[in-house]
Structures are given as structure tokens and as C-alpha cells.
């Protein structure tokens, strides 16, 4: 559970930092009168959808933080047999990273107001994103063929669980990307497109970060951290 506690602590720290800007020490019973005399009146200077996305990211982060906690706890049991990770996984990681890069490019192109570049980069991002999902399915296929079924060993169970849940969230990202593409082609509106591209980019960067952590988990790069977490618990 330490991993989850760390995650929740980070979220609470962000909330706490934000609250501190909101003049929680104000004495509202003395502050009467016109707006503008007092700070912290208005809302956050971000679009509503962007705030919602960050809240959603905190929720999804909590989900994966807990999965990782469970992974570390279960890993310590003697029957855990680490999977030999298919090489394909490295390729998939590259594809997901390229999705992020393409979306970063799309964001820059929106800033430069070059619609054709935006479109090209959105297509590229979609291509790499689909490649990632297809690649993950191929990895599942390879593992199944090698006899690593979901119930074979807890390490296998966890591999399918974390990649499956991450994959579902990536599919959500693809839907968002399709929505953005729709904005770029059919229902073009510069301001909305700009926001859509930005939100898609943030979500996909987040998916990449989550994946890199999960990747270090399944490839055994994070084993030492897991050992520390377990020792805290027992």
C-alpha cells in the first residue's frame, strides 16, 4: 500500500497547495462587500474541461497506484514467477511514446494555426496509438502461445490485469482522439479544436507516464522499490 499512500499524499499535497492560495486563513465574517476587494473570488483560470481532465487523471492515477500497490504486495510471495517479457513490449513502448510526440507536434501546430499540420499529426498520433493497442494484443497472443495463461501464475495474472486496464484507458484516449479529429475535419472551430488537441495531448502524455511505470514493473526494473514497500508493510 505504500505506493498508494504516496500517490494519495501527492494528490493531497497538490490540493493543499491550491487551497493555500485560496486564503483559507481569511476571516469571512469580516469580509463583507464588493467583489474584487478580496482575492480568491473567482474560479481557476483554466477551462472547465481542463480542470475536469486533471480531476479524472487523479482518479485514474489512484486506480493505477492501487494496482501497483497490489502488484508489489503479491510479488513478495514465494510462488511469484516473473514473466519473461516479450521483446515486442519495447516496440509498443516506442509506439506509445511516438503518439505523445505526435500530439505534442499537433499542439505546436495549433499554436501556429497550421490546420494541415494539425491534421497530419493527429493522423500520425492515431496511427501510433492503434499500433500500441494492436502491439499489446500481439504480446497477449505471444504470451498465451508460450503457455502463460491468465491463471498460470500470479505474475501472469497481474501482467494481463495491468496491461488490460491500461489498454482500456488507452482505448478511451483513442475515442478522445477521434473526437478531436472530428473537430479538425467536420465541425471545425479553432478555439474548440485548440482545447481538444491540448486535452488529448495531456491525456496521452499521462497514459505514457502510467505505461512507463507499469513497464518498469513488469520488466522487473522496479523490483527494489517493491521490496522496500513490502518491508514497510510487514
Amino acid at each position, binding site marked *: *500500500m505504500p505506493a*498508494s*499512500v504516496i500517490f*494519495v499524499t501527492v*494528490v*493531497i499535497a497538490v*490540493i*493543499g497547495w491550491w*487551497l493555500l492560495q*485560496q*486564503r*483559507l*486563513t*481569511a*476571516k*469571512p*465574517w*469580516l*469580509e*463583507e*462587500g*464588493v*467583489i*474584487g*476587494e*478580496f482575492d*480568491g*473570488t*473567482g*474560479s*481557476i483560470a483554466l477551462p*472547465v474541461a481542463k*480542470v*475536469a481532465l486533471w*480531476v*479524472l487523471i*487523479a*482518479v*485514474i492515477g*489512484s*486506480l493505477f497506484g*492501487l*494496482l501497483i*500497490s*497490489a502488484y508489489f*504486495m*503479491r510479488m513478495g*510471495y*514465494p*510462488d511469484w514467477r516473473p514473466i519473461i517479457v516479450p521483446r515486442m513490449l519495447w516496440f509498443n513502448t516506442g509506439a506509445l511514446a511516438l503518439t505523445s510526440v505526435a500530439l505534442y507536434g499537433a499542439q505546436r501546430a495549433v499554436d501556429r494555426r497550421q490546420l494541415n499540420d494539425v491534421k497530419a499529426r493527429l493522423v500520425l498520433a492515431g496511427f501510433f496509438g492503434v499500433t500500441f493497442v494492436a502491439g499489446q494484443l500481439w504480446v497477449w497472443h505471444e504470451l498465451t502461445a508460450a503457455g502463460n495463461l*491468465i*491463471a498460470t501464475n*500470479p505474475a501472469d*495474472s*497481474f501482467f494481463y*490485469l495491468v496491461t488490460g*486496464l491500461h489498454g482500456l484507458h488507452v482505448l478511451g484516449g483513442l475515442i478522445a482522439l477521434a473526437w478531436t479529429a472530428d473537430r479538425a475535419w467536420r465541425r471545425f472551430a479553432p478555439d474548440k479544436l485548440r482545447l481538444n488537441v491540448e486535452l488529448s495531448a495531456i491525456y496521452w502524455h499521462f497514459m505514457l507516464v502510467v505505461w512507463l511505470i507499469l513497464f518498469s514493473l513488469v520488466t522487473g526494473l522496479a523490483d527494489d522499490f517493491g521490496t522496500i514497500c513490502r518491508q514497510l*508493510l*510487514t
Partner: protein
Amino acid sequence: MVDVTRGALEGIPAAEVPDVELYHPHSWIEKYVFSQDAKYIAIQYAITALAIGLVALVLSWLIRLQLGFPGTFSFIDAHAYYQFITMHGMIMVIYLLTALFLGGFGNYLIPLMVGARDMVFPFVNMLSYWVYLLAVLVLVASFFFPGGPTGAGWTLYPPQAISAGTPGQEGGIILMLVSLLIFIVGFTMGGLNYVVTVLQGRARGMTLMRLPLTVWGIFTATVLALLAFPALFVAIIMMLLDKILGTSFFMPAIVSMGEQTAHRGGSPILFQHLFWFFGHPEVYIVALPAFGIVSDLIATHARRNIFGYRMMVWAIVAIGGLSFVVWAHHMYVSGMNPYFGFFFATTTLIIAVPTAIKVYNWVLTLWRGNIHLNTPMLFALGFIITFVNGGLSGLFLGNVVVDVPLSDTMFVVAHFHMVMGIAPIMVIFGAIYHWYPKITGRMMSELLGKFHFWVTFLGAYAIFFPLHYIGLQGVPRRYHELGDAAFIPPNVATLNQFVTVAALIVGFAQMVFLYNLITSIWRGKPSGGNPWRATTLEWQTEETPPSHGNWGKDLPVVYRWAYDYSVPGAKEDFIPQNQMSATETGVRS
């Protein structure tokens, strides 16, 4: 109070929150059924939650009938009994309390209290309700599934939850898990709305420190729920995989019904960690909205500003943060490292500090207040007393050495029913009596309301005080029949009969409440817009009940905090938040 100089009206800067374009319904169905108006969604949530809560109430009668008069009712066999306690617990905690506080009161009050026209994402808000309804229907379906609903206990501990021999392990448990998954998805949609509306939808002048405590409570509880429900989500997916695909996340190697199961090496303790990482914040998901609402009820009906508003806000935030580091106090008997238990006992006792601050502040708000003992106030007072009682037995159970002998006894049942059963329900009732005039435009009957209060309040004590004693005698919970055990004194059986009779009477009082709730829609006397003479924005709407869009042409502008009651020199004993000057003339003596 110090006099404050006010700037000129012309000084108002441009709106930080631009007025929104509202979605307008095109047909009857869009207006009343698939409504995107938070007020309708709130009522839909509340009706659904109360309806499923009624099922849980009937289940509690059946449980009590068996405990009071074992063997008398042949249809309550051991299987049925376990199914009843499981469904009673799960429905009450998740489908009634969580849904009613956040989906019901959250939806109704947040936009009105912060001065918004609606939630920020009305469509997602509508989806949230229908997904919740689906979760409830899936849950209800398990009653009609072969083998019946699950009897695993509301904590759903593996391995027994999905092992042969547990009632409902064929399909009931799967439906329960799926229903919870659906509930969490639906809640996340609603929760995003509540949080972002509070952050982004506030009217001009509504600083965070001017928010009514109700909004603070619901807001913080929603943040907790958004971070804690994923723990339940993860645990449920893993348990479903264990059940359906034969993985061993939680299932150890066991011999079941004389046969070695295919599972091996799973960790039931892992489930307990995940479950309580959700389960403990869940207590505060229910308690924090109650804290907030009760603060507003007390301030309004005692005609006094809330004592220590800042402290109340800080306490809500502190409780929210601390609630994430106390989960393992539910697991003292799971064989954990004693130092680990020591850590969690300490955090548990620390959380008593902000909680106690809140209780003191409620009491100090009442001190020399002009207390109106109407139904909402009676329920608020009932809450304070009940919450203190339940909280004190929590201090017992929070200590490892006291908890170990009391673990899984009726004492625990009595404790959590007082602190997160009766206490929040008191607030729900008080809040319904309080906001009913705004929702329907009519008052509920005071006479029936007081009858409802006294029977419920005294009845709840008649039920749960004896249970503390029975628990201290070592009587375990979750036993279908006690049989002849040497350590159980004979008066336990008599007490159990008494408790059962009390439970039936309290149940009857709830029918009176329902009668009052329904008939007051047309029989209640018209209330006008602000019958309690309250300061918060929801009472200042042009129409009662508020129309679509809540406010007329212009959004309200907020000039003061939510608790300007009995301000010296003011014309009335309350000053609405959107009123600029204390006296009509704008000069304050």
C-alpha cells in the same frame, strides 16, 4: 463585529464566471425523465436511493426477527440470514447513504448554493443517474437469480465470498460485484461534476471561504470518494477474475467441500487492504456531507453564525486527508505487524481531534442561540448526540488491545450503526425536512415530523444501546443462531427480543415519514421562498421551486459569508449572501 468599508457598486469587475448557455429540454421526456437539470437528477437519485433503502429496511426487520425470536420464522434459514445481512449492509452504505448524500443532496444543493445555473456537465450528470439506476437494478436482479443474492457479508472477504458453501456464490456474488463496478463508474461521472462545479461554477463573490459548510462537506467527501472508490474497483476486478477465470489474486490454496481447489497462493489480506483503503474513507464520504449539512441546519435554526467557521473548514479538510491513513484499524486481527497496528491506532486517535473540534463548534454555536426546536433542528441535535456516542465507542475500538477482544462482536455492530448508520440518517431526515419547502414549495407536517423524530431517536437508542452490552458479553456478530453457549447470559435472549420490538417500531415510524413526505406535496401548507429565513443562496431564488437555470435573468452576486444571522444593527435577523448591505439603506450602525 468590526465595521467594514464597502467600495462603490461601480467597482465590480467583469464576471470571472461567464454565464453559461443552458441546455433546454425539447420534450416531456427530456424534461422529466432524461432530464439534464441537476434538480431533477437530484430528485431521481433521492427517490431511487430511498426506494432501495426501503428494501434494506425490510431486510433489517427480517434480521432482527431472527435474532429476537430464533427459529420462529422458518423462511429465515442460515442462508437467507446471511443474504439479508449482506444486502442490508451493502445497500445502506453504498446505494442509500453514498448515493443520497452525493447524488441527491450534492446535485440539488451544489449548483444552488454556489450560485450556478446547473452542474458544469449536465449531460454527464444525467448519465451518472442512469448508470446508478442500472447498478441498483443489477443489485436487485440478484434477488431473483438462482441461488439468490450473495451472503458473503458486506465486506465480501475472500476466500469465502466466492467459495462453495457461501450463499449466492453461483451468481449472486457476480451480480453484486458487477453492480458495484457500475456504481463506481456512475459515481465517477457525478463526482467529476460536483468537484468541477464547486471549483469553476461559483458565482461572483463566492470565495471558497464564503461557501456554506454543506458545500465544503459534499465537496471534500466527493474528492475522497473519487480517490477511494478506485481501490474498491481494483479489488472487485481482481475478485471477478478469481471467480470467473480462476486466477489467484486473493484465493489461497484451500480444500473446499473435500476437494483441492485450482487456486493457490493468493492473498486474502491483500483484499482486506484494498477493501479498507476504500472502506475507511467511505465512512467519511458519508460523514463529511452530514457534518456540513448539520452545521447549516444548526446555524439556521439557532439563528446564530456558525462558531469557528475557519476551524470547521480546516477540520473537514484535515479529516479528509487523515482518512486515507487509518484503513488498517479495520484489520487489527488480520495478523499484521504490531508496530503497524500501533501506527494505525495513533492515526485513528489523531482523527478524533478535528472531529472533536467540530462537535465543540456545533455545541458552541447553540450556546446562547435562539434555538427553534423544529423538526430539522431536532434531527440535527439528535445527530450530535448520536455521533458523539458512536465516536466514543470508536475510541475504544481504535485501540488495538481493546479491539482484539471486541472484534467481530455485537459491540462493533452497535458502534458503526451509531456513528455511520443512525447519525448520518438523522442528518438526511433533518435535511429533507429543511429543504423540502425549497424542493416542493410546501412545508412537511411538523406534528408528524416530531413524532417521526422522537420515535426514531429514542427507538435507535433502544435498539443500539443494548447491542453494546450484548457485544461486551462476547456475543459475536453474523451468527444466525446463538444456541446454548455457556458464556452468554440468559438476559441476552430477552434483550434481543426487546431490540427486535424496538426495531419494528422504528421501522413503523419511517412509514409515517414516507406518508408525510408524499402527502405534503399537495397537503403541506405553502412555504414561500424562504420559510426558515436562511442566508444561503438556494433560499434566494426568484421562484420556488427554482425553475430551470435556477436564477432569473442575472446570476446572483455574493457579498458576504453564509452565516450572517442576528447581526447587530441589521434590519432582519439574517442577511442573505447576495444582499449587499446589512440594512436596506446601505448604512450600518
